[in-house]
């Protein structure tokens, strides 16, 4: 089993930044990522993006180019296409790549596995043609693919960003259906802080909204009772605004209710988690440097709580510097500067969180709405099991198989905690979340049987450069 000073999971801004810092200090760093190229979802395929795509996706995306280049030139051992399927508290880790499993060990581990889309249970959300807004953006970033006549449904800045990017690329969405109650705007305004980063985020947001409106995209505000209609694929989106029914034909429907930390690894390791009322999600508990309740296990980036790409990069550096600081027992002044910088950068979050709080309908779906997509379990079935005295997510899982399909609860876990809390009149914190077990992703027996020696690329990093 190959040993590294620091192992990092995830090649987004947090993971790449920490790897750069660790390797620059002369320590050995391993970075494992399940995608073919570095960048994470935010800078996905950035190395292959040429001028016109950079123009469509905008300067925030283009910024990733520098970071990826710096990461590529670092001495990090970078293994792409690697799916981490187990992590132990002694900081050994197993991953599979091209059908073979490998094991490694490390003195410190940085989990930078980012965010996933919040589960958005609503009628028809399992129909082919319905994707997440993030998925459509990935198709654009990674493959230069654009859908025409898309209806964007939900709430969150990503909806406006994608709409603006699509317009620039020449595929105007056919409508935006925003599900947030108008009262959110009034509740959010007092949370606005005026400093440079907040002002810059706000300005960007307003410009995006303006470009969408200028392009003539119909925007429906305060939509309720959203349902996607169709028999074998999406055909239309229906919803209600102040008692008036609307129905928009759509072959492609993109859903979004914000993003939430991907908690699979920190859950697997039984790290402490807390419920964040403002983010409506569980967050791993950590100190200001990202060290979790498991010693030498750090969390950085959106996996620690949603802060965006800039914050993620700073948190990645911060965790790395803290590890180096502990290893050398020399204090680094850069850590306090980073902490102050992060504080400023996240000052827009309370406003965004209040404004884009997921709608009540998403948190408490209708009886016939599928909650667990893999096993096709409805909200009604979940409530019926609660009515029969089942106390929480793990017992519901045993009884109904929710969270036991291939996605292992990633797309129902949060929804289930919310439904159970609502039904039992408790808080999601007291209801809790699924226990997550290895393997983190479904594994073939042959992948386990082919548990090889740790794989060491002949030349670090560069040999993986995409042609």
């Amino acid at each position, binding site marked *: 089993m190959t040993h590294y000073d620091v192992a990092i999971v995830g090649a987004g801004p947090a993971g790449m930044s920490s790897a750069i810092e660790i390797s620059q200090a002369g320590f050995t760093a391993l970075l494992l990522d*399940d*995608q*073919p190229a570095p960048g994470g*979802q935010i800078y996905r*395929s950035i190395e*292959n993006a*040429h001028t*016109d*795509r950079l123009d*469509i996706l905008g300067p925030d995306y283009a910024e990733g180019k520098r970071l990826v280049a710096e990461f590529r030139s670092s001495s990090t051992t970078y293994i792409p*296409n690697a*799916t981490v399927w187990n992590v132990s508290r002694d900081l050994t880790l197993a991953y599979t790549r091209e059908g073979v499993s490998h094991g490694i060990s490390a003195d410190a581990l940085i989990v930078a596995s980012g965010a*996933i*889309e919040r589960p958005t249970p609503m009628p028809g959300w*399992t*129909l*082919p*043609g*319905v*994707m*997440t807004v*993030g*998925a*459509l953006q*990935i*198709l654009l970033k*990674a*493959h*230069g*693919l*654009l*859908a*025409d006549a898309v209806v964007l449904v939900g709430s969150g800045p990503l909806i406006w960003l994608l709409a603006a990017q699509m317009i620039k*690329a*020449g*595929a105007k969405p056919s409508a935006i259906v925003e599900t947030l109650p108008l009262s959110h705007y009034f509740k959010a305004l007092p949370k606005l802080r005026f400093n440079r980063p907040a002002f810059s985020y706000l300005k960007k947001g307003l410009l995006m909204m303006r470009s969408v409106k200028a392009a003539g995209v119909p925007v429906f505000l305060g939509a309720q009772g959203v349902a996607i209609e169709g028999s*074998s*694929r999406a055909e239309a989106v229906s919803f209600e605004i102040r008692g008036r029914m609307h129905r928009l034909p759509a*072959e*492609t429907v993109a859903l979004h209710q914000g993003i939430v930390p*991907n908690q699979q690894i920190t859950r697997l390791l039984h790290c402490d988690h807390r419920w964040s009322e403002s983010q409506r999600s569980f967050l791993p508990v950590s100190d200001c440097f990202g060290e979790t309740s498991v010693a030498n296990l750090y969390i950085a980036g959106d996996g620690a709580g949603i802060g965006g790409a800039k914050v993620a990069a700073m948190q990645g550096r911060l965790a790395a510097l803290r590890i180096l600081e502990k290893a050398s027992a020399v204090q680094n002044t850069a850590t306090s500067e980073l902490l102050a910088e992060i504080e400023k950068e996240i000052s827009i979050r309370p406003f965004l969180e209040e404004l884009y709080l997921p709608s009540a309908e998403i948190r408490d779906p209708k009886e016939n709405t599928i909650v667990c*997509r*893999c*096993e*096709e379990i409805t909200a009604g079935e979940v409530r019926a099991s609660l009515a029969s005295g089942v106390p929480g997510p793990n017992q519901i899982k045993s009884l109904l198989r929710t969270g036991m*399909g*291939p*996605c292992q609860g*990633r*797309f129902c876990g949060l929804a289930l905690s919310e439904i159970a809390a609502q039904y039992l009149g408790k808080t999601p914190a007291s209801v809790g979340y699924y226990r997550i077990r290895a393997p983190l992703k*479904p594994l*073939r027996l042959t992948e386990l049987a082919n548990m090889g020696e740790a794989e060491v690329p002949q030349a670090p990093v560069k040999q993986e450069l*995409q042609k």
Partner: protein
Amino acid sequence: MLRRIAGRISPDIVFEFDGRPIHAAPGDTVASALLAAGETIFRSTPSSGKPRGPFCMMGVCFECLVEIDGVTDRQACLTPARDKMQVRKQRGFDATASS
């Protein structure tokens, strides 16, 4: 239906999807090539047999599972498209009985 604004399909990457030839562009995954070719239904579910297609495109939802070269449960969004691949829709009830 999705269309390409960048990248061209390559004559060197042609795979079959339930017998239909699918032309892919360099950098395509099985999922992106299929979506670009107008395919939206990738599998049927093991519980009810209902149709499903890609949802998250980042490897976490497992909705895009297909059979590739006889191996089931392959994530189409994480699998690079390669020439001569035999891709099939994953039929729900087969999935539980497969190797």
